[in-house]
C-alpha cells in the first residue's frame, strides 16, 4: 500500500480499506443491483494499480487540450491522468473569492470531505476504491460565492491494464452557485476505472454537475456518483455516456433538506458490443422535496443497456414530488435494453410517477420525415439526435454538448455504413 504514496492519514485509510476488501465478497448477478450486469466477466487480476511515477505525464495531455478549447471560458481546470492530478489552474479572480480547486490532500488534510457523502465503504468496489484512490480532487466553494464559469475536471487514462480510482469531491457552500464539468476519456487501452464523485449542495446552494464519458472501447468503468441536497438547495446532474466496453454508473441523490430539489438527466448510446448500465436512487428523506429524473438511451449493433431506478420516499418526507422517466430506442435486432423503474413509498402525501419504454424509432415520426422525402436511415438519424436533444439542450455546460453531439452523430454514421455494408 505504501507504494501508492500520499500523506499518513490517507495511507491509514487505504490500509483499513484493503483489509476490509480482502474479506468482502465481490458482487454477483444474484444481487438485484447487479442483475443484468456484466460483472461475472470482470477479471480483477487483469488490472493493476499504478505506483507513483508510473505515468510520465506532465501537464495536460493533447487529447484533453482539444476538449478544453471547445469548452471556452472556465473558472478552473484540473487534469487527472491515470488517477493522478497532473495539472491545476484556477482563475486568480476565482481563487480570490476563496474558491478552492485542486488536490484534496493539499486542500483538506486530514480529509474531512473525503467520504462525507459516500459514507464508509461497505461494498467490495467501494473498499477497493478507498484502498487505491491515489489522488482525490476537491472543488470547494465558500458560502455566498457565485462561480461565474464552469470548473472543469478532466480525466484521462492511457496506461494499459491499469486500474485507476479517480475521486472528485464537490462541496458547494451555503447559497453558493457552481457548475462542474467532469470529462472522462481514454486512449484505446484495456483499463479499469472506478471513479467516485461526492457532490454536496449545502443549504440554498445551486450545484450543477455534468459528467461526459467518452472512454475507449475496451475500458471498464464501475462508477458511483453520490449527492446530498440540503435545505432549499437545487442540484442537477447530467450524464452523457457514450464510451467504454462496460460502463456502469450508480447515481444516488439524497434529498436531505426540506425544500430541496434534484434533477437527474442522462443520455447513453451504445454500439457494437458496448454496455451501459445505470442504477439510480432518488432518496427523499426530507419533506417538500422534489426530484425529476429523465434518462434517455439508445442501443445499436449488439449493444446492451440497463436502467434500473428507485424512488424512495421516507417516512418523514411529506409533500414530495418525484418523477422518473426512462426511454430507450432499440436501433437493431441484435441490441437489447432493459428498463426497470421502482417506487418505495413510506409516506402517502406524495406525487410520484414513473414511466419507462423500450422500442424502435417511433414509426409515425419516421413516416412523417420519410413522407417529406427523407430516406429512412437519414430520418432515423434525425429522430435519434432529436431524441437525445431533450437532455443535451439542458446541459449546464452548453459548450460541452457540441462535441458530445458530434460523437453521437459519428456513431449513427457508423451504423449507416454498416447497414450499407450489410446490404451490399
Amino acid at each position, binding site marked *: 500500500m505504501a507504494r501508492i504514496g500520499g500523506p499518513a492519514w490517507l495511507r491509514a485509510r487505504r490500509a483499513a480499506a484493503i483489509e476490509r476488501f480482502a474479506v468482502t465478497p465481490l458482487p454477483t448477478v444474484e444481487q438485484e443491483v447487479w442483475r443484468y450486469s456484466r460483472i461475472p466477466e470482470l477479471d480483477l487480476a487483469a488490472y493493476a494499480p499504478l505506483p507513483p511515477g508510473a505515468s510520465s505525464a506532465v501537464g495536460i495531455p493533447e487529447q484533453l487540450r482539444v476538449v478544453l478549447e471547445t469548452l471556452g471560458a472556465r473558472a478552473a481546470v484540473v487534469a487527472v491522468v491515470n488517477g493522478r492530478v497532473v495539472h491545476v489552474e484556477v482563475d486568480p479572480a476565482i481563487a480570490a473569492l476563496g474558491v478552492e480547486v485542486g488536490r484534496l490532500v493539499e486542500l483538506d488534510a486530514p480529509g474531512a470531505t473525503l467520504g462525507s457523502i459516500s459514507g464508509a465503504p461497505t461494498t467490495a468496489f467501494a473498499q477497493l476504491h478507498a484502498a487505491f484512490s491515489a489522488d482525490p480532487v476537491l472543488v470547494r466553494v465558500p458560502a455566498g460565492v457565485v462561480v461565474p464559469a464552469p470548473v472543469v475536471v478532466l480525466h484521462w487514462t492511457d496506461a494499459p491494464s491499469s486500474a485507476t480510482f479517480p475521486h472528485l469531491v464537490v462541496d458547494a457552500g451555503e447559497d453558493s452557485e457552481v457548475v462542474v464539468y467532469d470529462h472522462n476519456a481514454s486512449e484505446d487501452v484495456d483499463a479499469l476505472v472506478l471513479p467516485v464523485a461526492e457532490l454536496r449542495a449545502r443549504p440554498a446552494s445551486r450545484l450543477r454537475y455534468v459528467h461526459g464519458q467518452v472512454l475507449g472501447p475496451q475500458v471498464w468503468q464501475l462508477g458511483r456518483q453520490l449527492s446530498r441536497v440540503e435545505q432549499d438547495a437545487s442540484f442537477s446532474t447530467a450524464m452523457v455516456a457514450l464510451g467504454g466496453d462496460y460502463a456502469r454508473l450508480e447515481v444516488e441523490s439524497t434529498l436531505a433538506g426540506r425544500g430541496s430539489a434534484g434533477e437527474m438527466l442522462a443520455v447513453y448510446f451504445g454500439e457494437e458490443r458496448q454496455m451501459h448500465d445505470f442504477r439510480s436512487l432518488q432518496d427523499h428523506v426530507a419533506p417538500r422535496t422534489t426530484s425529476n429524473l429523465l434518462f434517455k438511451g439508445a442501443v445499436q449493433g449488439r449493444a446492451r443497456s440497463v436502467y434500473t431506478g428507485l424512488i424512495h420516499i421516507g417516512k418523514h418526507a411529506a409533500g414530495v414530488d418525484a418523477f422518473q422517466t426512462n426511454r430507450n430506442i432499440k436501433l437493431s435486432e441484435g441490441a437489447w435494453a432493459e428498463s426497470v423503474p421502482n417506487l418505495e413509498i413510506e409516506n402517502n402525501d406524495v406525487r410520484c410517477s414513473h414511466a419507462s419504454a423500450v422500442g424502435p424509432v417511433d414509426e409515425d*415520426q419516421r413516416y412523417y*420525415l420519410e413522407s*417529406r*422525402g427523407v*430516406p429512412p436511415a437519414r430520418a432515423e438519424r434525425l429522430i435519434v439526435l432529436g431524441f437525445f436533444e431533450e437532455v443535451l439542450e439542458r446541459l449546464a455546460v452548453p459548450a460541452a454538448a457540441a462535441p458530445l453531439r458530434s460523437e453521437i452523430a459519428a456513431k449513427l454514421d457508423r451504423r449507416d455504413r454498416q447497414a450499407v455494408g450489410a446490404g451490399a
Partner: protein
Amino acid sequence: MAELVISGLRAAVGGKEILRGVDLAVRSGEVHAVMGPNGSGKSTLAHVVMGRPGYDVIGGSVTLDGVDLLALEPWERAAAGLFSAMQYPTEVPGVALADVLEEALVAVGRGGGDVAERMRFEAERIGFDERFLSRPVNVDLSGGEKKRNETLQLGVLQPRIAILDEIDSGLDIDALRKVARRVEAETEERGLGVLAITHYRRLLSVLRADAVHVLARGRVVMSGGPELADRLEASGYAGFTDEGE
C-alpha cells in the same frame, strides 16, 4: 407536365376493406377536390397514395407519370414529386424543420441552397410566425399552425403533385385564405397538381377546383364541376351514405 393516376385502387386496414376501387387522375395545374362523409375513406386514400405503413393495397394502381408509386418507399414517392399534407401532422421532438427539409432536398440533388431563407420567405407568405421555425417539427404548435407548417413545407419542397388532407381544418378564415392562396399560386406559377380533401366549400372559394369528387364507401360515386361543392354544402351527403353494401 405531371399526371397522377389512381386506378381501381383498393386498400384495407386490419383486414377491413376501406378503398373499394378508386379512380382519379390529377394533372399539372389542376385542382381536384375530394369530399365525402366521415369514414368514406378520404384520409385512407391520402395515406395509401403516400405509402403510410399499416395500409394494405389489395388491388389497382397509382402512377405518377407512368411510374408505379406503389412499388416505391414513401421517401421515393416524395422524391418522385409527390407531397402529402397531413390532417394530423406528427410532432418530432428535438428535430429542426430546416434539417428535415435539407435532408429531403439533398436526397433529390437539390441540397446546398439556403433552406432557412426559403423557410422564412414561405413563412411570410402564409403568415406563419417566424419564431415557430426554430421549434422542433410541429412540437407545441396549434392545429392551425401545423397546417401552415405543412403548407410552408410544400412551398420549400416544390412537389409536382400535392395531396392536402383537410388543410383547412383548424385554420381561421384569414389563415385559410393565405394558405389557399399559397397553394393556388403554386398551381398557377409552377403547375402544381392538387388533390384536396375537404369538408368545406370555403377552401375552394380561393383554391379553385377544376373538379369535385364525392367519395363514399370507398369509391368515387360522383364527379362534377365546382358547383357540386355548393350542392353538397346545401344538401349534405344523405344521398350517398345510404348506398347498400
